[in-house]
């Protein structure tokens, strides 16, 4: 599914470019959920932006493929059409663009890029209603401009709404748990778990172990200084919680 080999990347403009990823290797097979944990500033969000093609994040070495296709050469919208989805750590406000308009435009743009038929308006509205219901997002909220005036928790639920509407192949959740109370966390986790599928892969980036009680990972990786320095089962997350990064990293170093 997603195969990252020896990936290096810098952030920033040419002269001030800073190496953030330093030979990161990671393999997430279809059907699996992998968690990435790591201290602040380790490069977790950088990895998610590099994989989705954000400007200013430049690959300096290595490769990343989705089902064998080199994604690093594609522009962001092409990667999205191929199935890459990022739930942003900090979702962006888009004043003047209602959620429904935005998501419907995105769905149809992706379908067009894949050579598929557009989703009809009634189908879209029906699906939107279903998904909104499971996430406790009411119709009124979905008519408001994207993320404008939404609380932190509502923004994260709206990310999951978009994910469920777009039905991507590969999901990256960047600290989707931050800013969520326990009820919202459960709602979001239910949404994510509903997306689990033998043909789908997920990368769940988190700073805390808490989310992994609800979204059970197949593997846990520790990212530090731009590399995966340790990989284990779900118990690794528990150890990190107990011993802290210093304890676990000290042993790895």
């Amino acid at each position: 599914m997603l195969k990252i080999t020896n990936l290096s990347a810098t952030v920033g403009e040419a002269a001030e470019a800073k190496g953030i990823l330093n030979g990161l290797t990671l393999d997430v097979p279809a059907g699996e959920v992998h968690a990435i944990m790591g201290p602040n500033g380790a490069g977790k969000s950088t990895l998610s932006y590099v994989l989705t093609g954000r400007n200013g994040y430049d690959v300096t070495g290595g490769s990343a493929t989705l089902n064998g296709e080199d994604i690093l050469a594609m522009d962001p919208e092409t990667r999205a059409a191929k199935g890459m989805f990022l739930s942003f750590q900090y979702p962006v406000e888009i004043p003047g663009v209602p959620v429904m308009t935005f998501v419907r435009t995105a769905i149809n743009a992706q379908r067009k890029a894949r050579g598929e038929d557009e989703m009809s308006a009634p189908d879209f509205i029906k699906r939107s209603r279903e998904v909104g219901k499971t996430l406790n997002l009411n119709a009124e909220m979905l008519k408001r401009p994207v993320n404008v005036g939404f609380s932190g928790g509502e923004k994260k639920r709206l990310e999951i709404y978009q994910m469920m509407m777009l039905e991507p192949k590969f999901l990256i959740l960047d600290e989707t748990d931050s800013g969520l109370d326990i009820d919202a966390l459960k709602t979001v986790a239910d949404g994510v778990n509903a997306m689990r599928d033998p043909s789908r892969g997920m990368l769940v980036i988190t700073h805390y172990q808490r989310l992994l009680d609800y979204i059970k990972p197949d593997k846990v990786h520790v990212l530090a200084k731009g590399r995966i320095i340790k990989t284990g089962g779900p118990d690794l997350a528990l150890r990190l919680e107990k011993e802290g990064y210093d304890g676990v990293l000290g042993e790895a170093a």
Partner: protein
Amino acid sequence: MTTALRDFIRNPTAAELELVARYGMQPEDARRERAFLAFAETGLPHRRMEAWKWSDFRASLKSLDRPKQAAIPDPLPHDGALVFRFTPSGFAYPKTLPSGISMLAKREVQAFSSAEDLPLGALTAALAGSDSKPATLLFEISGRDLPRLHFVFEGAGEASFSRVVFLLRPNAELVVTESHLGGVGMASALSEFTLEAGAKLTRTIYQRSGPEDAIGIASTLTLDAGAAVTQTTLAFGAKVSRLETRVVHRQPGAHLTLNAAYLAGKGFHADITSHVRHGAPECVTRQLTKGAVLDGGTGVFQGKFLVPRITGQHTDADMQHQVLLLEDGAQVFAKPELEIYADDVQCAHGNTSGALDDAQLFYLRQRGIPERQARGMLTEAFIAEALETADETVRDVMLAEAQDWLAS
């Protein structure tokens, strides 16, 4: 041509000589002469005049030539409207008008009191009129629930001058829409509105042409007690274009909303200029101008609120200009001015310019929306706020036009 006529303008350009010649062919009329002399004072407005430093008609308009590109088809709906059509030599109008609207097509020039402030308006007052076209088209409006009046200004020819004067009687209500569609080397329209107490005007202006046209749209608005005007403009500019609106709040409690959106592509110049005088207490002005400019395009915004010491008390006025520079090489000149002498007022203004937000653009693209479309969506969302006040019969069409421009 006599030397006397030639001497009207110092060092005239070919275009100015043409204008003098056109004046020479008009019947004698003392008011026409006064208007033309006011124009001849400066000739075509040029960059050495403070108010025209960013919109140099003299330099842009070397001679009066018919542009290669014909007038664009009118996107605004004609259904349900009374349609009036001005061309360089013609004027067409509905055979019958409902009661509440009376129209008088006059061969004589009506005095134009703002001639010194509006040189293109003065020129228009002096040159409007021909065999089939009135020098002054007068409307007296006394009813409500009237059909929309739609005015079309279009080619084809070297020059076109059109003048319309409206008098709205107390508590009258009128909806006016205008399409300025080009196809003329120089198209200049002058509209004067006087609103008596409690009258209400909703005016929506659409301006678009090819890249060789010069376009002037000059307007005056005078508001009596409790009168209300909502004017909304969508302008795409031209080789050189100026939409200039002068407003006087003449009696207490008048309300003005003055909104505009301009979209200037490569080779297009769009100037939105306004002057609002709070000549009576307790009047309100809300002005929002939004722009989006591409590489090689030029936008100009000049806004002024004048609030005199005694008559301007309790003025409530706000002026905002916000522009998106969509590409490197986009040019915008802005001069928002508040000139306030009264002490008990609420006046504010803001002026910002910037590029599209990278984070927003990436967010849309990550969801699969191609870059061009994403830029169009963000720009339309930005512009739309200024068009919300457009008359509902034309608002959606205007938004669609803006979106088409952005996507092309």
